[in-house]
């Protein structure tokens, strides 16, 4: 690997470095390093003039690697990589050595020591560059098509957006009908728009698009390939299998309403219904809310059914999470009930009223319209009984100092939360990780909330966690934006700083495959006589997590190879000459 001609450029940074480090000593030491063809100092290496001078030096001296000792790479790595590129040098043959933040500024009162350290750091930089190889970004051609799994509101809206930006779109829906839960729920908060109508509008738009193919009664049963170029097998109506070539996948499989257990808050008793059941009742009501053959006058809502559960003996796997939408959905439903029958009495037994953001207005309005809110303590849930023909809800009212009250009810509405949809097959096919609550897990809730560990596979809507309608749509459009970033240009450039396998050394023990969290990044392949590991550069994220597990040091991370690190270590302790 030797025989390289390396340039070492040492920056004064005005006096920020040179006041504390003897630049000339560093330069002279760098010049003596093996492989260093030229060493220069600059007052401000980031200045345009200095960059011109460096470019000239690189070209005149026919350098094939450079080291710049200056400030933190956070400030100028990109600057100097671009400069290297302009000079015709491979940008990955550049190493930035931080002699400001990590040397001159940290050791201001020890000029000699700081100078010594700077020499060591520059030597290490030279060692890294000397063992470096020119690398180029990995360009992957992408297929301008996307798959949307699930044709609820999130999936349908995502399909339209993908089509808007010019992608061919395949929508696969397990059910026979599109729309998920919404069509049966009547008017939705916060804008009172009819769910069925909204779905109808979306479906009509989808039908009007040539680029969207909708499969209902269909399932995804196979997936291969990698980001930008997947092959997906869809089984339609249980028999027919279709293979699609696509660049990205949006998973929008939605949720299930929490199914209360028999006896949970009286569930199973006549007159005890879930919120979705009640929604249907209200949606279908005509001037009067009726349950069976009876008119409903007194309604008691019990909140947090299936959400914020505590672990108990009979319930070892509770839903610890808050389902987010239900408080608002319940007060909104109460308002709808008011709208149908002004004389209805409504009691809300809640723990914390989570009508966040603008939904607070609905909560306020429900109160104004006569809804009574009774807070119950976490450890004193209401009890729903049917002592003698009528329903009675007993609850200790926090406001009345914990006094127990009994509320007779015609109807008890269990405000049920969301649970993850049963999706075992899909999980198996896509290999998506799930979170503690059973929803699909994103890579990072803030940095990458719609991306998954599988590059090119995005999650949207309530499949990722409880969401309101608008939130589901926003997240689906966010998923589309990430898909568009991938597909719109027709290619993706992936940085080349990924792991690679030394085929000579590798003996395939499988440790690297086991440790890698990125599905498909490590594969067992046969090479001649033996089996070895192969790392897919498009799937590798370049963390280097597999490096330490390889028992034979057969894996190297580009830009940070075993040889480079060891050479840097040696350079950092070698006595100053």
């Amino acid at each position, binding site marked *: 690997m030797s025989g390289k001609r390396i340039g070492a450029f040492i920056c004064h940074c005005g006096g*920020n470095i040179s006041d504390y480090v003897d630049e000339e000593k560093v330069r002279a030491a760098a010049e003596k390093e093996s492989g260093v063809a030229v060493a220069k100092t600059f007052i401000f290496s980031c200045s345009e003039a200095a960059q011109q001078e460096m470019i000239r030096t690189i070209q005149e001296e026919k350098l094939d690697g450079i080291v710049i000792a200056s*400030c933190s790479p956070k400030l100028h790595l990109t600057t100097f990589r671009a400069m290297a590129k302009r000079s015709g040098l491979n940008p990955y043959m550049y190493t930035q050595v931080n002699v400001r933040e990590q040397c001159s500024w940290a050791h201001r009162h020890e000029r000699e020591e700081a100078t010594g350290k700077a020499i060591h750091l520059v030597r290490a930089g030279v060692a890294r560059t000397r063992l470096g190889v020119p690398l180029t970004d990995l360009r992957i051609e992408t297929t301008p098509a996307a798959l949307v799994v699930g044709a609820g509101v999130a999936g349908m809206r995502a399909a339209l957006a993908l089509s808007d930006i010019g992608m061919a779109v395949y929508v696969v829906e397990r059910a026979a009908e599109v729309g998920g839960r919404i069509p049966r729920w009547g008017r939705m908060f916060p804008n009172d728009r009819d769910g069925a109508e909204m779905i109808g509008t979306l479906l009509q738009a989808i039908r009007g698009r040539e680029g969207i193919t909708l499969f209902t009664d269909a399932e995804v049963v196979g997936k291969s390939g990698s980001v930008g170029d997947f092959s997906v097998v869809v089984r339609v109506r249980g028999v027919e299998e279709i293979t699609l070539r696509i660049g990205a996948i949006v998973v929008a499989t939605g949720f299930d309403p929490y199914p209360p257990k028999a006896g949970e808050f009286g569930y199973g008793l006549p007159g005890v219904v879930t919120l979705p059941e009640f929604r249907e009742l209200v949606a279908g009501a005509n001037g009067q809310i009726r349950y069976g053959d009876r008119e409903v006058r007194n309604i008691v809502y019990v909140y947090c059914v299936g959400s*914020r559960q505590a672990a108990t003996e009979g319930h070892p796997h509770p839903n610890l999470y808050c389902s987010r939408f239900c408080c608002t959905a319940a007060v909104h439903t109460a308002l709808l009930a008011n709208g149908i029958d002004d004389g209805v009495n409504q009691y809300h037994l809640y723990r*914390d009223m*989570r009508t966040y*953001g603008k939904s607070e207005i609905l909560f306020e309005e429900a109160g104004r319209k006569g809804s009574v809110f009774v807070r119950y303590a976490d450890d004193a849930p209401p009890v729903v009984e049917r002592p003698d023909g009528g329903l009675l809800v007993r609850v200790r009212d926090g406001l009345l100092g914990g006094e127990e009250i009994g509320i007779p009810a015609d109807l008890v509405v269990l405000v049920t939360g969301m649970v993850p949809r049963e999706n075992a097959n899909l999980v198996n096919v896509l290999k998506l990780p799930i979170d503690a609550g059973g929803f699909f897990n994103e890579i990072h809730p803030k940095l990458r909330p*719609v991306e998954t560990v599988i590059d090119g596979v995005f999650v949207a809507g309530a499949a990722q966690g409880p969401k309101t309608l608008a939130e589901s749509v926003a997240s689906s459009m966010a998923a589309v934006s990430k898909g*568009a970033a991938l597909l719109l240009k027709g290619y993706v450039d992936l940085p080349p700083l990924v792991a690679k396998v030394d085929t000579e050394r590798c003996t395939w023990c499988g440790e690297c495959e086991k440790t890698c969290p990125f599905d498909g990044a490590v594969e067992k392949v046969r090479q001649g006589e033996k089996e070895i590991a192969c790392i897919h550069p498009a799937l590798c994220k370049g963390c280097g997590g597999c490096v330490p597990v390889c028992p034979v040091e057969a894996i190297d991370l580009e830009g940070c190879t075993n040889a480079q690190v060891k050479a840097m270590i040696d350079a950092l302790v070698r006595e100053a000459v």
Partner: protein
Amino acid sequence: MDYDVLVVGGGIAGMESGLTLGDMGYKVLLVEKEVSIGGKMILLSKVFPTLDCSSCISTPKMAATAHHPNLTVLTYSEVEGIVRKDDGTFAVRLLKKPTFVDPAACTGCGDCELACTVAISDKFNSDLVATRAAHIAFPQAVPKKAVIERAGSSPCNFTCPAGVKAHGYVSLVRSGKYEEAFRLHMEDAPLPGSLSRACYAPCEGQCTRDEVEGKVPIRGIKRFMVDSYYERHPEPEYGPPEARNGKTVAVVGSGPAGLSAAYFLARRGYGVTVFEGGPEAGGMLRHGIPPFRLPKELVDRDIRNITALGVEIRTGTPVGSIASLNDQGFDAAFLALGTMEGQGMEVSGRELSGVLESMEMLATGNAGGRMDLSGKRVAVIGGGNVAIDSARMALRMGAGTVAIYYRRSRAEMPAHDFEVQAALEEGVELHELRTPKRFFGENGKLVAVEWLSMKLGEPDASGRRRPVPEKGSGVTCPADIAVLAVGLKPNTRPFANELGLNRDGTIQADPETLATSLPNVFAGGDDVTGPSMIIEAIAQGKRAAFYIDRYLQGLPLSGITFDARLTSVDGKEVLDRGDVPPSARAPVVPRELPAAGRSRSMEEVEKTMTEEEARYSASRCLDCGICSECHQCVAICPAGAIHFDMREERKTLEVGSIIVATGFQLFDPKRKPEYGFGEYPNVITAMQMDRILSPTRPYNAVVRPSDGMAPSNIAFVLCTGSRDCTVDNRLCSRVCCMYSIKQAQLLMGALPLADITIYYIDIRAFGKGYEEFFEQAKGMGVRFVKGKVAKIGETLSGNLRIRYEDIHGDGGPVTAEHDLAVLSVGLSSNPEAFGLFPPGLLSADPFRYVREVDEDLEPGKTSIDGVFVAGTASAIRDIPDTILHSGAAATQVASFLQRKRAAL
């Protein structure tokens, strides 16, 4: 089209949508009004519910934004207006505010911040600690470049004719940097000693502090600074400049104008010769101002500031003509002859012995000579400073009585009132509304003056009421000496054939460039303007040097402004800056020789302040312009990156679509006075607590602001400014419950022994992992009390008494004591978004957020086609929802642009 997309706002929403669109291949312009991108998120300590470090999440995103090949980031810039054009694109008017730091040169080293002499409140640390007028916003700022905070010119700096940076040296003296203060002065005017005694200090006249309890004694501070400098440096620290340009300039006249021109020309490398007709240099400084006001040793020392540069002063060398200068080979000349001749008076008896021109007497006295006026009755005629000086000089020459006769009343006297006052204290009489009608003599010597009484008539051209004689009012009073101090004029007669002159003898010169009718001759100072103040003469010399230099370099004299100061800050705005008006602080009482003893002595009347007095006086400065222009940053910057002449730039660009990501505002807790924020130091906002908890915190640890005590019993007051009709915000702010729980958890880590109570109405822990986070806090021992806080009071020890309605305990109002209270302030809409467009075009929802026209199915879509909204500009969101919404907005933009492209 300049850009496909304009993103307004560089917070997390703007960055996220900008990056996503950039990744899609669109050209994006991101405009941020602050000096760094990152918005409010980068200021947080950690973020719920994962307790990730906010900086660790934000900084990679900020770096990616700054370096993305498809993104152009404009920080410290504002969108002034957006107009939608007929073709559906947008014209965007942009304003780039000056940072006064060249971003290409600045390395972010922060040396300027250490050198800066002006402490200001650090808004990035929520005003908990001071930063400097020159500063880097925060350690993770992107771009990491310094900025100099300037509100404009400070009125004192702005008003000084010579542009002396009064605020600059005052702030240097405040910091104890006396030598630097002197050197700063020397950048703008070379005669600080003379000015420190005899300048009429127009700066003080503009001092905003005067509105509080009295102006800052700027001249007195200068006097201290000069004295301490001259004491340490009896001779100048410098010699002639090394770089000489080989050209020579003749300066005619060695008064302040001539000396100033010589000084600035010599500094630029010219060979300068000053021609002085009299025996000594100094002009009016030497001859006009009496030593009891300006000791002559000081004038000598001042002049050495000029001669040290290699300027030759030829005394006793009058210049007879321009031609003679040309003959001597000078490349240019500057005429600064001053006004050394009396205007004279057409009064009968003028020729009598004993009737003097003021300058005769002053010049004699100032040169150390003496006229014997023992016991004589002296009448001084005139009302200007020269008259006062003459009267006081007469006293010191032994006069028996001295009376000033002025034809108007005292109020109209051009002399400064404090000078008049000093003269009166010394025993000078003042006769108003008198003018001499006739001098009576015996044996050719003055014995009496007949005075006419005057009254004030209609205002004249100068706006002053014209004095008119009262009929038959003559009074004759005995007098031995009459001193005419009724005005001065230049002696320009030698040049009358060569130059254009005015009727009063002044030279015709261009007021901007001081060019005369001859190309290589410039003229300035009193011989052009008529009698003026020293500082004005110095200003003229400085101006002349600037234009002579341009002339000799062959550069055009037009098209450049010599004086490019920022406009002056309005004093009222300065006084309104704080929540509380500036408190009064007693001015230092100037020390003078007692009037009784001094009137016969040439000893300097005024005394110099002590160091303590000078620093105290300087500390009364209000920093009107914020930056004082002390130029310490300029001196220290290793990259030479600081440019005070940077000015705002405007341009108009064309973009295809727009994302409004202007974010939110934090609720101002002063709107709930019952909580005592601003009044009680230990009531802080949650943003302040986040800063205190951040590793880049303003304090060394979690301590309370009143006295640095580590708190042990902390209260959080939720719903401050949210769900509250009284402050016109009915909405829930969504994030306060969670950030309070986060802070509570972090506090439990920082102060394991502390009790933490959260007063809440409902705990809204509704996002992924939020409820679990809430439970975790309960498990850690955080106390949750359901109760709305009604009032906060303070105890003597600085603790806080919190009164709340206990909803779920025993009920009723309860009072609890805590040593620190955190107001969990809500978020509210940022009305800035609406100002981007013509009024009414961008519609708002009832809560003044940007309205999404179809929030169910078209997130981010606004009332304007092609304009989308991302993040908290349309509704309060937490960070994950903001990121999602920004992604959705990016998709909307992409759809919009693709549709448009398809339509073409």
